[in-house]
Every structure is written in C-alpha cells, then in structure tokens.
C-alpha cells in the first residue's frame, strides 16, 4: 500500500512538472503554436457546422415523417353516405395508419382562428358559399410508399384532389445529405493537415530542446517521462484550438435559434432546441481537438525522438 502510494505521488510530481513544461513549450514557439491552434480552430468550426447540420436534418426528417399526411379532398357534392363509403374504400387499402375526418365548417373555423387575414375573408362567406372541401387526413405506415397510396386514394370515386409533400422532402434530404458528405471530406482533410502542423510544431520544440532531451536520457529519465511533455503540448494545442469553436457553437446556435424562433426556411424545418444540444457538441469538439493534438504529438515524438 505504502509503496503504491509513493509511486502514485512520484507520478503526480512528474506529471505536474511535465504539464508546466508542456505550457512552456507552447509559448516558446508561439507563432508556430498559433498556426496549429488556428488550424484546429477552423477544423473544429467546420466539424461543428457539420454536426449541427446533420443532426438537424436528421431531426426534421424524423419530424416530417411523423406528421406527414395525405390529404384527400372530397367532392363538394358528396353526401354523408358517400363520404362513409369513401372512408370504407380508404380503409381497405394497405399502408394506412390513421384517418382523420375534418368537415369544411371546422376547417373554416380553424383557419379563421389562425390568422386575421383568413378571418376577414372567411367571415365574408355565406353558409353555403364555403368553397372548402371536407377532407380525410391519412397517415401512412411506410413513408416510402406514400406516392402509390396517394394514387390509389385518388382513384376512389368521390375524391377530388389528393395532396401530399410529393418529392419535396426527398430532394431536400438528399441535398443535405450531399452537403454533409462534402463537409465530412473537408473535415477529414483538415484533420490530417492539422495533425501534420501540430507534428511540425512539436518537431521544432524537440529540435530546440535536443540538448535537454539528451541530458534527460543520460541521467536516466524513462522514455515515458521524456515523451510526456510533448504529448501534453499537443493536448494543450488541441484544447486551446477548441475554445473558439465551442464558444461559437454555444452562442452562435443559441442566437440562430432565438432569431429564427426555432424554424428556418419554412414551418417544416424545426431546429433542435439549443440545450443541451450545444453542450453535447462542445464535448465532442473538445475531444476531437484533444485527440488530433495527441496524434500530431505522437507522430512527431515517434519520428524525431529516437528513444
């Protein structure tokens, strides 16, 4: 027990000194460190955009699928019996999840409540002048087959028009998907460049401290304790580089969410709520920064520290 404790204390002392050394190294080659730090900053900003983008796309496609409905407009001339018949016809089809009926009076009432403009227009209609149709709103089980189901419903006698999102969602999702893939390629490229830059920065440190490393080896410093300050240097660069992207993510996204009220382009695209979303992303950014820093440092140490 006592021996274990002494060993732990010893390692803590060595670690403490190496952290101090790591910081010294970062500031000794400040211009190079800054180059690495800004490279990591740019990379992580893009990573952040990529993550926010793809998670939001995922979120709204899920939301859209959830309340994506076929709206079948019933001919105005149809009687109540006819409407019952149509309902039975629709029920016979496969891929039908739920059916909700709405009569035109209710729809008009709902629309009146939803906006001032609608209110004034609809109020001018007489009882029999309501141009709206009774509708069935149909949710489907499988969104992929929505087109076929819609076509079948359209063929049912008494159905005037069938509406659904058509290809809009699909094309939007595929555009975002391409964007996401492009971003991923750019990010991977940047991560590699950054790791090289960090390796270079640490290589300079190693060269400028060669004498010290040689003496350390001669007096019997273990390889681990020789390598450690450089690993810490990489870690510090990575962590410093992730500060700006983290702040940008937290404040930028919250700002965007507030400005847009959580909706962009249209009512359809709802943003993910900022908290704890941005905090999770921040943790991911910090971890990526730290890992890239360590990879860069490890590369330099393996190549230039002949131990």
């Amino acid at each position, binding site marked *: 027990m006592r021996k274990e404790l002494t060993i732990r*204390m*010893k*390692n803590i*002392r*060595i670690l403490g*000194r190496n952290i101090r050394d790591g910081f010294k190294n970062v500031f000794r080659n400040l211009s190079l460190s800054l180059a690495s730090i800004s490279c990591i900053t740019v990379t992580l900003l893009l990573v952040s955009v990529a993550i926010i983008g793809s998670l939001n796309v995922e979120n709204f496609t899920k939301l859209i699928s959830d309340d994506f409905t076929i709206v079948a407009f019933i001919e105005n001339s149809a009687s109540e019996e006819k409407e019952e018949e149509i309902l039975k016809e629709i029920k016979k089809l496969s891929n039908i999840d739920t059916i909700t009926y709405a009569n035109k009076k209710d729809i008009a009432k709902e629309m009146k409540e939803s906006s001032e403009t609608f209110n004034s227009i609809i109020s001018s209609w007489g009882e029999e002048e309501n141009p709206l149709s009774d509708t069935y709103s149909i949710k489907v089980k499988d969104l992929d087959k929505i087109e076929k189901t819609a076509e079948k419903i359209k063929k049912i006698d008494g159905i005037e028009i069938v509406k659904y999102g058509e290809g809009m969602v699909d094309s939007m999702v595929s555009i975002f998907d391409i964007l996401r893939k492009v971003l991923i390629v750019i990010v991977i490229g940047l991560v590699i460049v950054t790791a090289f830059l960090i390796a270079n920065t640490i290589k300079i440190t190693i060269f400028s401290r060669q*004498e*010290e490393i*040689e*003496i*350390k*080896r*001669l*007096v*019997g*410093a*273990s*390889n681990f*304790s020789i390598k450690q300050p450089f690993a810490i240097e990489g870690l510090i660069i990575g962590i410093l580089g992730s500060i700006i992207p983290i702040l940008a993510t937290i404040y930028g996204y919250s700002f965007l969410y507030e400005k847009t009220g959580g909706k962009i382009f249209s009512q359809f695209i709802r943003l993910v709520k900022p908290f704890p979303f941005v905090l999770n992303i921040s943790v991911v950014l910090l971890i990526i920064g730290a890992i890239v820093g360590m990879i860069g440092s490890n590369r330099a140490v393996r190549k230039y520290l002949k*131990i």
Partner: protein
Amino acid sequence: MEFIKFTDVEKVYKTGVTAVYNLNLEIKKGDFAFIIGASGSGKSTLIKMLYREEKPTKGEIMIGGVNVGKLRNRKVYKLRRKLGIVFQDFKLLPKLTAYENVAFALEMYGLPKDEIRAKTLKALELVGLKEKAKSYPNELSGGEQQRVSIARAIVNSPKLLICDEPTGNLDPDTSLEIMKVLEVINDLGTTVLVVTHDRDVVNKMKKRVILLDKGTLKKDYEKGTYDKNEKH
C-alpha cells in the same frame, strides 16, 4: 568480485569500422582506473557500451550482475540511474542554475522536493560549489562547470562514475582539482573510470591505467603512468 566484466567484446559499427575487438577486462568495485589510448583506439566506444549508448556486436558486458548488451531499450534508463556520467563539454543546461542543473536528474525520478534539495546540496558541497548554487553556467569558470556536472553525476549516489575526458577543456591546475574531487568520490566507495588524454593527470594520480590500442587492450597496470614512449 569484479564489478564490471568485459568478455570477448567486439564492436563493429554499421559503417563497417571495427572499434573494439577481443576485449577482456575486469574492474573491481571501488577501483579508480584511467582508460588511455590514441584517438580511434576505442576508448569512447568502450565507455559508450558501458552506459549502453552502443551495444556490443559480440561478447558480453556485465555491470553489477546486469548484462548490459542484452538490456532492452525501454529499460536502459534503469541502468543509467545507477551510473553517473561526466563529459568533456559538461552538458549543462544554460538556462538553469547550478542547483537546478544538479536537481534536474532527481526531478526526472520524481523525488519529493525536500529530498531533492537535501541530495542536491550534499552533492554540490562534495564538489565544493555550495556557495555558487544560484549561479548560471555562464557565470562559472570551466572547472566550476565541470564540478557542477560531476555533482549532477553523483547526486543519485551511483555505484559507477564514468568520465569521458573530464579535463579535456581545462587548464592543468584545474584538471588536478577535478581529479582531487574524483578521488574523494572514489574514497566514498564509488567506482570511477576516467577516459583521458592528459598525461600529467595520469602520471600524478598513480592509479590503474588501461591502455587501448587499435580497439584492443594493450597494457593494464596498477599504479601505472602514462609512458612518454607510448604512442597516443
């Protein structure tokens, strides 16, 4: 019991140069020995093999029961903690004070601060530099710098002190002072090996002399002198 034993040691560098061959040598615990010889006689290679900077191509080198040639790279530091090494060019870090340079080695081992302080001051006292502990290397004379590097080498109480041309950069009087310091360390029980070109030093010390020539042991005498007739 011999402390260091070379058995049929041969060293061929990658360039094809044979630096040491057929070397058999024993050094006892507590010995003080000079290793002399002309440039290229294999002196440096011999001591580099002792602190495992080089591995022997053939043969066996035992130090205190450890086969140095078989030592894995990862484990070399354990050997070096038991040795002290002094160089011609001191190898002090210019940005550290004398005290910090000596404490440096102990910091590497992760010793507690007060233990480092006690050992460092003791080592500096032994080489007679306690009052210059706060000076930087460029504020010290060559002899003082070499004494700092000796203090660093002995701070961890090594069993063996290896000195590679310790007086090579120093004037004759200072060289003798350094030798006196080494003698004190030897009297305290540390085995001391000194590689040198310095004829005066060898002659005045009257210690064991190991003469190397073209990579092999030529002469080995107790209380020897550096014969003027020997080529070097």
